[in-house]
């Protein structure tokens, strides 16, 4: 998984409304944008569309067009997304530490993430 993909997944999942939207879509095979917006009254339809776009660009959901309707479903390979999300959460803290102790412009801090699956 590339860093930029990881970052996109982290940015997408770092927002509570987007996590809730993703969780809602995961409850169903497919949902239309209208059905999703109907469950998020307080958020507003335009904002829901923009959340859906961010989730789609992060590769977390797929969009299928059918006439004037857009249907959304959770994409396969979700385990990778959870791992990418967790990696980014920790990586984010080291990035911030590096910029705080060395000045935001310094290139001295290099952060690397790596993932192993293991049985213990």
């Amino acid at each position, binding site marked *: 998984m590339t860093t930029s993909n990881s970052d996109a997944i982290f940015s997408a*999942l*770092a*927002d*509570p409304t987007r*996590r*809730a939207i*993703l*969780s*809602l*879509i*995961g*409850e169903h095979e497919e949902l239309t944008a209208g059905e999703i917006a109907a469950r998020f009254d307080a958020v507003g339809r335009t904002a829901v569309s923009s959340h859906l776009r961010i989730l789609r660009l992060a590769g*977390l959901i797929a969009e299928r067009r059918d006439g004037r309707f857009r249907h959304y479903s*959770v994409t396969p390979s*979700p*385990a990778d*997304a*959870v*791992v990418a*999300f*967790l*990696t980014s*959460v*920790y*990586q*984010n*803290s*080291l*990035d*911030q*530490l*590096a910029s*705080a*102790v*060395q000045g935001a412009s*310094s290139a*001295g*801090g*290099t*952060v*690397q*993430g*790596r*993932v*192993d*699956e*293991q*049985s*213990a």
Partner: protein
Amino acid sequence: MAELVLHNEVRLEACPSELFELFGSGDPALGWLFGAEAAALRPGSLVRLALPLGGPTRSAGTARVLSYRPNRRIDLAHESPWAGRVVCRFDPISGGGTLLRVRITIADHEVARLGAELGLLSGVDVNAREVPLGLLASLSGSAGILGRSTVNCAQLAVEEINADGGVMGRQVRLIVTDDSTDPGVGAIAMRRLCRIPGLAAVVGMHSSATYAVTGPIAIANGIPYLYTPTSEPTLSHPLLVRFGETPLDQLHRALPRMAAQTGGSRWFLAGNDYSWPRAIGATARAVIERTGGTVAGEGYLPLGAQEFEPVLSAIDRCQVDHVVSSFVGQDHVRFEREFAEAGLRHGTRTFAPLMDDAVVEHLGESAMGIWNALGYFVGLDTGENREFLRRYSDRFGPCSAPVSAAAEGVYEAIHTWARACYVGGGVEPTAVLSGLRSACFQGPRRCDRGGSLKSLLLGEATRSGVRVLDELPAATRAS
């Protein structure tokens, strides 16, 4: 156990000792891990985290120091919003600087839980020979900082039941899910639980705001729902079984006792703005006015409030003797800290219906002198409680999240449910509900059949936890 291991590293110009010193300072500019707030660096001490997960109430987490070597290594148990192990190593680089390596280990079942909650992974596989039992608890959001001991206590109860042969000869499988201290998320989590084939019951340890939407889902699915926290009596249905203290249980004797001790009569009622704190406020007002006191002011703030100043200055202006503070989770911690910092502890006494040993750990010095009345405090001096605390410590280690009253309530509810299955002769709802009428579990709390409380403990926050001052009869038993 299979687990996920993540490695992160960063090369920094600072030397190991400088970086080691930065850990736990509470400065958010250092990132959520190094900028965490650690009152002390010793095994077992609490580390408060502010994770970048968006939204003011969704970012609080906790970890605990397992061990450390000055300038070399810090070993942490991450407790919430997820459980894992975080080891930070500080290696000097020849020529100056530090290679900081962070190794994170998260159990596969915890990764699966997170995935399911994000809607990314499908639900759990339950073996048909097992009895699935759901736990809906707040593991993230404002109340999430108290979540780890709840999960531990649920796990301990289930392991004890299974070691004893399970229920009706079948092993119990605990399925943990998080409401993020948010009713909307709670509804999704509850529907996910209810779709698990053969789900026997759900144990709930979350706000009554979530309960108001998850209760009807349990009813619609025919699932017994054992709701354990202190709460106001709201929904009523045979499938909904409440275990916790009611506002009247908590307040009717304790508030007059507090007024008698201080000699004061003026009260301020403060809390988060939803049904439970409002019910505490209404009950407190009735008790105070009945006993000749005056409510001088009231202030309620939304969950996840950022600004406590309006309520703090109102308390100051009202010149009160006592405060009833029904904030929740992270809001509770922040309110009581700011209250103490503003010097308001001098000359007032606070009664906080959610104050327990876990809250006192988060509050530290600013908790001193707060009162509460609950069915359980860690300091309860009985053989049953000492035995329970020993089993908890044996199972989760000396550096685990300390038991809270809320968590212990979950432990008792699960044991009572298992007894009810035995008495009722099955795990299906009719058997469990009929069994609950006479099932009795001899745990640390003073309970009657069906888990109803006989008495509460009056406690005061001290430097060594909550000190038990007295035992008070529950309201339903009071004359």
